[in-house]
């Protein structure tokens, strides 16, 4: 699973003979490159003692201990004794929460978050383009995030399939994925799929909200047809089998209750519209994303069984969101809708605890319930609440140690553990910076030496830019929603913030 440290920091520094040898064995914590990062050990047992533990589970919040064994939560309680050989952490004065989960992320996707060319793209899969190499994974770990729901963009009424990952920084794409769980798909309603006011769109269909509705109905009708064709063939097995159609297969899985829908939405009318299609066609909508008018139709959502993943306090960034209010989350929650706050942003995903805190600020939700907006409820929305989202015996050992109250702007994430492995440690990160700086200095010195020997001409500049960083260094969420990225993925050309607005 893990590479040898063939090209380690130690080699470079050793050849340059610039630093004492004790640096050589240092773990490259906080390495800006995933391939260069070590997989942290998984101790047989970890005991966090005497901390304020927010379980997000039936045990609530209390001062006590958390025992981890072999990557799973073994016990949560008071006065737990440390098994022999356990890593013991003194949690006095500290707070422990479940690992935070981002219900709506576009981090760690390479080569574009939208297949925007067709109005239906249910055949495309984020799981094919997971970007294990982005440093955003590490940065989000540093804010206590342990899992993210990587969603296709909202360019089409029926978008691509999403992928749930854990923030196992350093692992390859396959090892980031949470396997063996129900998969989902992105749908989108409103402006983004219809694009009526986006200037000239010669042959774009649909261009109205009713067109979006008809398109979805038409595709599900086609999917039913397709299913029937297979059912007929399966009962006789005569002649050539029908040709597989991956676009329709994804929709058949929805009809069969084997694939969940995460639907980008804003307005109450379109939210009701999709639930009516679902009732007519016989499927469920698991989550509405953004859902800024969810507060108007919370009862209808609850009755349908739909959950809501919204922004804490974003509004007025385009016309269809003018009715947004910051109380949306608390009202949905109050009416019994399973509610989360999400990031939709690689940057915001580094401080999801503060998003949760806004559920307390706007609507006075109890603190423990507010924390669930970024833990247990997110796990429920991805149907993984049996393995993550709370600190309960048997669940994955994904947890965060904070130096204070997790909903306080003054608190800092000290450690983030995934599967019982410490993927982030603030102290180690700070300590490793010196080594990274030395490594850089050694390499720069090496270039200068070569230059003096006349061996290595340095890059001239515009006429020869030298090494072009591979596309995966630029997370698609930061580039591909930008128009400039259609032709180039150079970070300096991206007007990131402008286009992020458009994406939402």
């Amino acid at each position: 699973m893990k590479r040898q440290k063939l090209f380690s920091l130690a080699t470079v520094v050793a050849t340059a003979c610039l630093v004492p040898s004790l640096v050589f064995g240092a773990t490259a914590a906080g390495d800006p490159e995933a391939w260069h990062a070590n997989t942290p050990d998984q101790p047989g047992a970890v005991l966090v003692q005497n901390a304020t533990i927010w379980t997000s589970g039936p045990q609530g919040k209390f001062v006590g201990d958390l025992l981890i064994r072999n990557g799973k939560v073994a016990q949560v309680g008071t006065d737990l004794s440390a098994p022999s050989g356990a890593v013991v952490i003194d949690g006095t004065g500290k707070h422990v929460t479940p690992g935070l989960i981002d219900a709506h992320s576009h981090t760690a996707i390479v080569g574009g978050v939208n297949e925007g060319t067709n109005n239906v793209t249910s055949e495309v899969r984020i799981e094919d383009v997971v970007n294990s190499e982005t440093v955003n994974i590490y940065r989000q770990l540093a804010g206590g995030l342990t899992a993210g729901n990587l969603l296709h963009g909202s360019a089409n009424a029926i978008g691509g399939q999403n992928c749930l990952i854990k923030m196992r920084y350093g692992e390859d794409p396959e090892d980031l994925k949470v396997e063996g769980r129900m998969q989902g798909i992105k749908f989108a309603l409103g402006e983004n799929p219809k694009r009526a006011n986006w200037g000239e769109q010669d042959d774009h269909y649909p261009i109205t909200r009713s067109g979006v509705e008809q398109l979805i109905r038409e595709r599900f009708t086609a999917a039913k047809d397709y299913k029937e064709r297979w059912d007929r063939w399966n009962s006789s097995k005569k002649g050539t089998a029908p040709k597989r159609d991956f676009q329709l297969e994804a929709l058949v899985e929805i009809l069969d209750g084997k694939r969940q829908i995460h639907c980008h939405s804003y307005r109450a009318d379109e939210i009701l519209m999709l639930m009516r299609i679902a009732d007519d066609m016989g499927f469920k909508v698991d989550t509405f994303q953004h859902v800024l008018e969810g507060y108007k139709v919370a009862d209808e959502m609850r009755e349908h069984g739909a959950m809501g993943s919204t922004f804490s306090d974003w509004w007025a960034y385009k016309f269809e969101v003018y009715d947004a209010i910051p109380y949306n989350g608390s009202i949905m929650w109050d009416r019994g809708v399973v509610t989360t706050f999400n990031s939709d942003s690689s940057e915001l995903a580094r401080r999801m605890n503060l998003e949760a805190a806004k559920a307390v600020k706007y609507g006075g939700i109890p603190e423990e319930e507010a924390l669930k907006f970024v833990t247990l409820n997110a796990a429920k929305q991805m149907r993984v609440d049996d393995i993550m989202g709370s600190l309960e015996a048997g669940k994955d050992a994904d947890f965060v140690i904070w130096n204070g109250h997790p909903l306080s702007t003054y608190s800092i994430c000290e450690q983030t553990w995934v599967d019982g492995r410490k993927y982030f440690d603030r102290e180690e990160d700070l300590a490793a910076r010196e080594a990274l700086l030395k490594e850089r200095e050694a390499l720069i010195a090496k270039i200068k030496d070569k230059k003096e020997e006349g061996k290595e001409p340095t890059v001239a500049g515009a006429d020869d830019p030298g090494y072009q960083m591979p596309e995966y260094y630029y997370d698609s969420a930061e580039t591909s929603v930008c128009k400039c990225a259609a032709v180039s993925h150079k970070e300096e050309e991206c007007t990131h913030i402008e286009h992020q607005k458009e994406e939402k």
Partner: protein
Amino acid sequence: MSRLLHRALLCALFSLIPTSLLAQGPVYTPNVHALTNVRIVTSPGRTIEQGTVVVRDGLIEAVGANVAIPDDAQVWELDSLTVYAGLIDPAMEVKLPKADDEDDLANLDHHLSVVKSQTLLATGMPFKASDREARRAVGITTARMLSNQGAFRGEAAIANLGKGDLSYNLIEGEAGQVAAFSTAKGGGYPGSLMGVVAVMRQTLHDAQWYNQAMTSFEANPRGLKRPEQNAALEALRSVASGQEELLFITDDVLDLLRAHELAAELGLSLSYIGSGEEYKRIDEVKTMASQLVLPVHFPKAPGVSGEEGKDLSVSLEKLRHWDNAPKNPTAVYDAGIEFAFTAHGLKDIGKFREKVSEAIQAGLPHDAALASCTTVPAKMLGLSEQMGRVETGMVANLVVTDGAIFDPDTKVRAVWVDGNRFEVQKIEKPEGDPRGTWDYVALAGGAEYPGTVILGGELGALTATVVAMDEEIPAEATQSGSTVSVVFSMMGGQFTLDLNINGDNADGSGSSPFGDFSLTATRVKKHSDSKPGNGGLDR
């Protein structure tokens, strides 16, 4: 002079050549050679310190320390020089003219423009003399050529890089299907990387289905509806059924991992053109690829300036890759993966040997480097019994050097392809502006053959048209110093005109399928940079 008359004159001029040979195409004489008193590296690790290589009719007839020189051989005394097997590049990307407009799709093509598996590169590719010359200059005598277009790019072709047309050089016209993660150009589907993967998945499943349907139908058509024909799916049948390897071009290490996953899902057999950053995920790569083609496009050092060690304008990632890239071949070698080098991705092909030498300096054993340019690619291409070694019966593709082939100071003196000798010329910086219209006269066998060469384009990227026998013929032109070489095809063969330009006058020499000739030329019109007028419409 009328075209017919001209042709008649040419025939008269070369009437000494038997017509049967004319019909066969170019004739090269003499075609028996002995390279003698030369150091011979017959294969990596095996050397004859002083010996002779006899070449007859394009093949190596004999190699050894005590080989008798045949009476009919032209003798090349090569004291203090070394001869190697010609280098083989398993990944030469050929730029095809753009054809991404879906309106232009032919009847049996796939409805998606990125699916071009029906492309037979050998039938439609440019076989540019300048590309061949650039590779010969570094000792590359054979290449597997790959299309640069589409996600499914069609059949590769393997050819020698000698003189004459493709038909004389082609070794294998169906050298395997090629794929790469390329989106549709011009805004069509697929526009994203994940879209390309989805298209590949669907297309390969379609091809599997097509293969089954066709196989059933071919076995017993009676009572079965004839499956719908599709050239692209037809071309992918054996790849989709796992019987034939698909060659995947990767741009970064994640591409390789992704291609591997797709292949595992669909039961395909893959081989890879690597990206040069396999070292980053070498443990994964080791489990995925037993063979690799590796580029040597090691980057230049990033520009650093300012106070010692404090330059933050260049990222650590860039610095590291600069340092690690030349070690990539060693990492792949140490991982036990067999690999061949390619010049693919080098901006300047002329740097190929220099870059391989960087890999050697970074730890790669010299013999492994040589094998990666000769025996290994020969094996990959299924040509082990034809090339890659200087041994009896092999094709006479040879490189003559004045030292160890990957020593940075070593010069390539000559290259032999199919038993034909090529001087290696260094391309000099252009001197003077040769553009304009030149009337030339070719002198051969006492007769004069007039013609015109029109040189245009940009300096350093000349364009050329030759008017001969009342015909306008597209040509290639390259300038080195004050010499311009013009290459064009006529009468089923290749003609070259080398003009040494001095002001508005030039002299020089030329070659044709029928023999060599001398040249004189005069510039009758200067090149004009002005754009065509608009007929005064502005006014």
